[in-house]
């Protein structure tokens, strides 16, 4: 099955991707599905897919990025086409900012503060609708986190604060989510319950989306600030995607769970202890994630309508602007819509 949302093609069934004349064709036992190359930016493979170099060569000419996920919904890698936007100047500045402690700390503090703001905005909805239990965490996020970050602290301390922000966020899930999605603690590889499965899968999707968005800028994917630039990973994508997790992933999860769009007994694989979304569950979740990514808002800085997906690329631009022009880096804020 191939389904098409915006400029992303998700391939959820087994088959083969090929170049056919000047188009892409997905072939399986059910037949051929043609995917015109012009309309797409990325292809997400969520099942076993056969490809050949002729196909890879073709999509790289059009700058199409190919992401692979394994059977368990875990991200396994990206085919990253030949870079078309290369700027030596920006690469040098990116490295300089990493080595310049002050600059690096500024970027990291902005990101962590951005996470706190966006979590606050996400949770405030529940407070507004009568959930007074979460007032403490709201106050902490709004008042204390910025103070903690204002201090003269090192990168380790910033990472500790970041950990704390997520931890406190997870700790109130039981207060805002339907009972069947009881959540003890965040477990990653592999997720141990339905909610962890949703979080892991959602985070991986936003991570791959961010890779594609950064591909549209001059930034080098491997040079990051909050996360250590470790070899073989697109760690800048981890940095940039961080503030979008509450906005895209968690808002979608809360919506799917509380509005019963996704249910434990219907949309998870029983054999695997409900720790894995089944095909139907995965399709629902992707559709909802995509809807949110492609929803439109008026961007305060641009004074123009744009999508959350584009806002990820704009955060890349903001980083470039900090590197090249020293303009303070303020990641996307759900409060300011900037």
């Amino acid at each position: 099955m191939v389904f098409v949302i915006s400029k992303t093609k998700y391939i959820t069934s087994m088959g083969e991707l090929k170049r056919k004349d000047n188009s892409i064709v997905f072939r399986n036992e059910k037949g051929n599905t043609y995917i015109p190359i012009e309309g797409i930016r990325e292809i997400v493979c969520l099942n076993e897919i056969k490809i050949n170099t002729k196909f890879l060569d073709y999509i790289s000419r059009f700058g199409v990025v190919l992401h692979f996920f394994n059977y368990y919904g875990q991200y396994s890698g990206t085919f990253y086409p030949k870079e078309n936007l290369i700027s030596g100047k920006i690469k040098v500045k990116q490295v300089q900012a990493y080595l310049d402690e002050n600059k690096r700390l500024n970027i990291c503090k902005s990101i962590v503060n951005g996470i706190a703001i966006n979590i606050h905005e996400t949770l405030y909805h529940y407070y507004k609708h009568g959930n007074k239990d979460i007032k403490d965490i709201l106050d902490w996020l709004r008042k204390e986190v910025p103070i903690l970050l204002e201090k003269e602290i090192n990168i380790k301390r910033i990472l500790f604060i970041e950990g704390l922000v997520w931890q406190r966020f997870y700790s109130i899930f039981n207060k805002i989510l339907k009972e069947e999605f009881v959540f003890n603690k965040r477990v990653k590889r592999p997720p141990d319950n339905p909610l962890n499965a949703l979080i892991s899968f959602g985070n991986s999707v936003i991570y791959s989306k961010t890779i594609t968005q950064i591909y549209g800028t001059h930034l080098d994917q491997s040079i990051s600030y909050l996360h250590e630039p470790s070899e073989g990973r697109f760690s800048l994508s981890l940095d940039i995607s961080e503030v979008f997790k509450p906005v895209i992933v968690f808002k979608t999860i809360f919506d799917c769970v509380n509005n019963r769009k996704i249910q434990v007994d219907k949309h998870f694989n029983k054999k695997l202890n409900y720790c894995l979304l089944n095909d139907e569950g995965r399709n629902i979740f992707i559709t909802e994630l995509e809807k949110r990514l492609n929803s439109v808002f008026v961007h305060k800085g641009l004074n123009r309508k744009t999508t959350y997906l584009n806002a990820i690329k704009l955060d890349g631009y903001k980083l470039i602007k900090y590197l090249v022009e020293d303009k303070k880096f303020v990641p996307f804020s759900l409060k300011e819509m900037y």
Partner: protein
Amino acid sequence: MISIKITGTIINYYIHCKRQCWLFGNRINLEDNSEDVRIGKILHEIKSQESKSSEISIDNIKIDKITGEYLVELKKSDADLNSTKWQVLLYLKKLKEKGIIRKGKIEVIEKKKQDKKIHYVELTQEYEEELDKLLLDIEKFLSSEKPPIAERSSKCKKCAYYEYCNI
């Protein structure tokens, strides 16, 4: 001798918008998703197929079309003819250095501000001197550490750098 670095696009941008020129000249050439640019490119292709002599590259400049008398530059619209004029003057000068003397002709596909589709420009002594000065200015300008601050105006609306400048 003109520096090898400065292209027709760079001189065009320098007249049109200094910030755009700095960013482009420093290889910060953002992906352009705008429909206008796409139309411009396609018009270019169609026109160069019509005329048998296709695009010619000399050093680092690309010339749309050259005839016995004219060097021809094709533009989608006449929104900023002054920038195009300097672009053409640069080409004329480059050609002259190679011993090829031509006059400049700008062909506009959609006229908006002017009532004619063809505009002529000649490389006079005065222009040549002005151009030399301009090229020196541009070189100095491009090597400055930062681009000039963005000033929003109506011409920004369709620019590929709009998002970058206003973010």
